[in-house]
């Protein structure tokens, strides 16, 4: 992973000092709450229903063991012993006290962690594939470009007061695990005919109350032009993005209103004026960043070790986990292991301080002290020797993060909802908990295959309901919680928005309706291995509607 140098550390220390001064000015009354709001948001501090919430950036989802231990420490010392991993590869703490914030931030900074770019109308935490650098199908490590973008967008002097927040995601694999088509900018690394590395640039994707799939405005952007082109997009957005209506302020609305072609022409004009300036990335500059990524010292390992065969023979539990949570690594003899933060009946994405400490230790022992966070709110140990899998599995199982449900129906993405969030209209977590109990049986969920259920507690769509295979959106009707259900959404390289299946249903009926949707799928699928989302795409919404709503 990327190792901070003296410059990165100095900037962070300066930021912590500045924020401590801002908190002091707020507490003394020099700053009004309105003035302070913007400053705290620039440091990841939100005011929620019950308390301040602190969101910490995990740039492109990469953590060291030392950093994860620091997050455990903050959970224990300043919060209520747990943290919540979000859909943007961040973590948030829900019960922080304002006067303890500077101390918490100073502690975090010691491990190179901070809350910059996790809130406010700036370029947010840059996200990428949680398998970056280890996925067998990727063409290059996207983290290097993610880090270049992270540095460039940190405290950007021109783009810290944009019309609205701005999210950038990258992928370098055929299979998009970073949901780049539903970001303000999505960047897909690929090679052109001449074998050069560059980016397909997609803009204007997003969820929220007006969801859009992003549009490609450049097929191939050479890597030297990455920063200048992104800067040109941001400059066009900063000047022309709407500021009169917060719900129309995201770049997707500008791209939609102007049209992708006209938008691209504006960007092109800005870009031509600056592309050969100071932002051009020469190979030395890229190499300088790449050089500070620590590469694990992989050893020669058997790809099919006896220990794994023995463990498989000893019982079905290991085998189920191996088949579900372990993926191929680009280095022979190694594996990518996903740790499910979706235990049956638990709130999705939460980890206790004790779990975080234990995972940090396990990462040190089995994964070169590195942990990844994925947008599905699970953790990943990216470099596990296959011969260690049986031992690792037993230890993960002991701390409750070896549920073999990754990518299955009970691996639910959910926002915090009305239990925490001041924007929410309805609860998300209890719905997720109930569904995880209904689909918790592993034989049942394996039979259903890959099935993503995404839940948002309001139209802002933090739970990505539009792109869930089954999407659940909480709304409020006459003071009661109701839920709209969509099917057929997906966030990968074939990104699609889900379609509404019928009228909203009350809280008490959501789990029943979802079970009926799943029963309809089992009836409608062409073969046992046709995925839910493929069945919807083949037969459309109507047969589902008929079956689910006939009896209602």
């Amino acid at each position, binding site marked *: 992973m990327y190792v901070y*140098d*003296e*410059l*990165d550390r*100095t*900037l962070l220390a*300066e930021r912590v*000092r*500045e924020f401590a001064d*801002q908190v002091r000015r707020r507490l003394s009354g*020099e700053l009004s709450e309105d*003035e302070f709001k*913007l*400053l705290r948001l620039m440091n990841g501090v939100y005011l929620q229903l019950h308390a301040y919430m602190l969101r910490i950036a995990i740039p492109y989802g990469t953590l060291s063991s030392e950093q994860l231990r620091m997050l455990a420490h903050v959970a224990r010392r300043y919060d209520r012993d747990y943290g919540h991993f979000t859909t943007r590869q961040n973590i948030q703490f829900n019960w922080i006290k304002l006067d303890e914030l500077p101390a918490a931030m100073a502690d975090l900074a010691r491990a190179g962690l901070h809350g910059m770019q996790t809130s406010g*109308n700036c370029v947010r935490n840059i996200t990428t594939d949680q398998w970056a650098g280890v996925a067998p199908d990727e063409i290059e490590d996207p983290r290097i470009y993610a880090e270049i973008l992270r*540095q*460039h967008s*940190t*405290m*950007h*002097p*021109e*783009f*810290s*007061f*944009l019309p609205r927040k701005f999210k950038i995601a990258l992928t370098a694999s055929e299979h998009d695990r970073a949901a780049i088509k539903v970001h303000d900018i999505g960047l897909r690394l690929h090679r052109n005919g001449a074998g050069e590395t560059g980016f397909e640039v997609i803009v204007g994707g997003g969820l929220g109350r007006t969801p859009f799939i992003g549009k490609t405005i450049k097929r191939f952007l050479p890597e030297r032009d990455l920063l200048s082109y992104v800067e040109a997009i941001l*400059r066009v957005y*900063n*000047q022309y993005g709407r*500021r009169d209506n917060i719900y129309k302020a995201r770049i997707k609305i500008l791209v939609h209103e102007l049209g992708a072609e006209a938008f691209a022409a504006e960007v092109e004009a800005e870009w031509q*004026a*600056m592309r050969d*300036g*100071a*932002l051009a990335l020469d190979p*030395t*500059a890229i190499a*300088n*960043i790449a050089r500070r990524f620590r590469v694990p010292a992989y050893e020669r390992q058997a790809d099919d070790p006896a220990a794994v065969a023995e463990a498989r023979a000893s019982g079905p539990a290991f085998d189920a986990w191996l088949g579900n949570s372990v993926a191929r690594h680009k280095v022979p003899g190694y594996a990518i292991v996903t740790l499910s933060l979706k235990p049956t009946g638990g709130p999705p994405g939460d980890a206790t301080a004790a779990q975080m400490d234990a995972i940090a230790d396990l990462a040190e022992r089995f994964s070169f002290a590195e942990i990844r966070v994925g947008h599905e709110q699970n953790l990943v140990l990216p470099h596990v020797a296959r011969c260690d899998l049986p031992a690792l599995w037993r230890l993960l199982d002991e701390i409750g993060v070896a549920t073999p449900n990754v990518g299955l129906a009970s691996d639910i993405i959910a926002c915090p909802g009305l239990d925490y969030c001041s924007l929410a209209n309805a609860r998300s977590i209890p719905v997720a908990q109930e569904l995880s109990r209904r689909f918790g049986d592993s034989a049942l969920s394996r039979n259903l295959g890959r099935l993503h259920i995404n839940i948002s507690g309001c139209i802002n769509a933090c739970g990505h309901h539009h792109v869930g295979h089954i999407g659940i959106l909480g709304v409020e009707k006459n003071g009661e919680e109701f839920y709209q259900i969509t099917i057929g959404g997906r966030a990968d390289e074939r990104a699609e928005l889900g379609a509404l299946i019928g009228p909203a249903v009350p809280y008490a009926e959501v789990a029943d309706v979802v079970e009926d949707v799943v029963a309809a799928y089992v009836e409608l699928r062409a073969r046992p291995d046709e995925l839910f989302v493929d069945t919807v795409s083949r037969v459309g919404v109507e047969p589902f509607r008929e079956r689910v709503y006939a009896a209602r």
Partner: protein
Amino acid sequence: MRLVRRGEIVEDRFLHVIDDAPVPEHGPVIVPAARLIADAADFARREDPTGVVWPNNRKIAELAPCLDRLALVALVFPSFRDGRAYSQARQLRENHGFRGELRATGQILRDQFVFMLRAGFDAFEVSKDADAAAFADVLRRYSVFYQPTADGRQSALRARLRAAGSERTSAGMQDVER
């Protein structure tokens, strides 16, 4: 309101002409954008310094033909949340090579100073007296900058490349230039 110019609290020598008020023949003035564009020829004949208040929703390209006769451009932050003028400032400095006074006006608070300086502003109509007094302190907050802009501060990336270059030429020299 206090005017901070090139790091010092100073008296404003410019007269602010509002709307259709008459423009004096002599002495420095700042006029509204509409007046400047409508009477461009008259202002071009003026011998004393002329400045303009340029709104944040008007293209800089429209102002470009007048720039070589202007001593000052004031860009507007109607609220500290509205960041359009940061882009205009960089366009003026970096694309059009404007070297006159670039003044930030509107809701200007101390926590924006560093961003504004980096975008190319060198004068600030600061809303609170205490913020104006804290100007020099605020500038000392940061010594590391990731982005190259026209303010001349070296970006972290260039600092690293220079350090790497000097490591190669004089072994043992670890000092990173800022």
